[in-house]
């Protein structure tokens, strides 16, 4: 479960005040809103790489506001993928597992599992340079899921993907939801994407997050 209470974010250009919402355990929620309204900032606050001016972030009932990003158990897929430029795809996906000192067999099993789910087996030896937008997103998704995070945050995962593969990626995200059963918050500006995927729909408008599921 993801829970935000009274979150205030101030960055040059805009301010979000007293943001509060929750995503239920195991739910797939989308957060919709126009470009540049602070959706990415909210994700960054949840995963801890941006400090809010006020408020509290809880994951599965535990207050993580003061915890370091790496202690929160969050898998974050940023909009541009932000893959590690000098690492092979295999090393990127193994990154979080090796930091946790999983034994080699366990790492390999998880790697095989994710390669099959995300269809990236043929990319494992490659470095990010030259991957297509869709491939980058799948690798970033694998990297974020590898260590069985408690929640998954997706920042516009379909925006860098061409129309033809978008449908495939939506199907893939549905499969991930079924396979991993992980609480997910998916940020998007597209309402069709939100309709196709979401169990729970949130909308950021006029600096407030409202529940749009009932609309």
């Amino acid at each position, binding site marked *: 479960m993801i829970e935000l209470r009274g979150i205030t974010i101030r960055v040059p250009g805009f301010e979000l005040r007293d943001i509060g919402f929750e995503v239920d355990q195991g739910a797939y929620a989308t957060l919709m809103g126009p470009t540049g309204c602070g959706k990415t900032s909210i994700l960054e606050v949840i995963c801890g790489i941006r400090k809010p001016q006020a408020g509290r972030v809880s994951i599965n009932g535990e207050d993580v506001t003061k915890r370091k990003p790496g202690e929160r158990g969050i898998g*974050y897929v940023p909009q541009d993928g932000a893959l590690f430029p*000098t690492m092979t795809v295999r090393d990127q996906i193994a990154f979080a597992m090796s*930091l946790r000192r999983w034994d080699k067999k366990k790492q390999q099993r998880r790697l095989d599992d994710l390669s099959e789910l995300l269809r990236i087996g043929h990319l494992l030896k490659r470095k990010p340079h030259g991957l297509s937008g869709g491939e980058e997103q799948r690798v970033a998704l694998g990297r974020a899921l590898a260590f069985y995070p408690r929640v998954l945050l997706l920042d516009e995962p379909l925006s860098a993907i061409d129309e033809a593969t978008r449908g495939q990626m939506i199907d893939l995200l549905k499969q991930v939801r079924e396979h991993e059963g992980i609480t997910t918050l998916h940020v998007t500006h597209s309402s069709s994407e939100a309709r196709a995927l979401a169990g729970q729909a949130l909308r950021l408008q006029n600096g407030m997050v409202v529940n749009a599921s009932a609309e």
Partner: protein
Amino acid sequence: MRHDQANPAPERRVRGDAPFLGAMVAVGLVYVALIVAMLVADASFTSIGAIRDALNDPNIRFSIGLSLITCTIAAVLSVWVAVPIGYLMSRFSFRGKAVIDTVLDIPIVLPPLVVGISLLVLFQTPPGRWLDGVFHSMMNALGFDSIRGITYEVPAVVLAQFTVAAAFATRTMRVAFDQIDPRPERIAMTLGAGHATAFSRIALPQAYRGMTAAFTLAWARALGEFGPILIFAGTTRLKTEVLSTSVYLEFSTGDIEQAVAVSMIMVALAMVVLLLTRLIGFGKGAV
């Protein structure tokens, strides 16, 4: 306004690129020509025989050896301080950052003579003398009996070179880290990495080219260093004489042909080392 099919707009003609590119090349060539002309003048002033004589002179041989060793030590030390400073200045904002930034430029701005005098004065203060003594005993313990402290000894050569070279290396590393996207490092932190791991596994491997550039620049700066060495390390033959000192010593005794011969050796040495470093650091495409 509607598109008028009967009277289409006149086709736009784009001027040829030749005048523009020609002007760029012409301006560039002026500078390249100046450098080449200087070298040609040097070469015509001296002879193969004079260069051979210089290479056979034990003083010059010592000076070449000492230059290679001190420049390399100074360049390694420069990169060693430039990486953390460059990373900190690029990734963090803190109170007094502008002041630190200015301080880092001082060795670049100061006249070389002033750098030398400042080092000399620094090592005459009580903490400086103490450090000199500690270094002397350290060298003794390591078996380098001939090095009696820092001032007017080989370490003074390295320190004088390092003081200026490190400023250039630091600038280079700052730019290198500025050009590396910090987002992957932040993502690494969400995956469980601390700052140290994000730095060593994500940022540093990407800074490899920057480090090579910083090393090359620092090495070249160190080879050309003269003023601070003259004042802080002296010009004792077979002790603190490096190539720039050799040129000065030969020139001051009126042997201009020998001075130019040593200069040519210096140019050749610099080109070989810089080419090698680029070959190793940047790969074949960079040469």
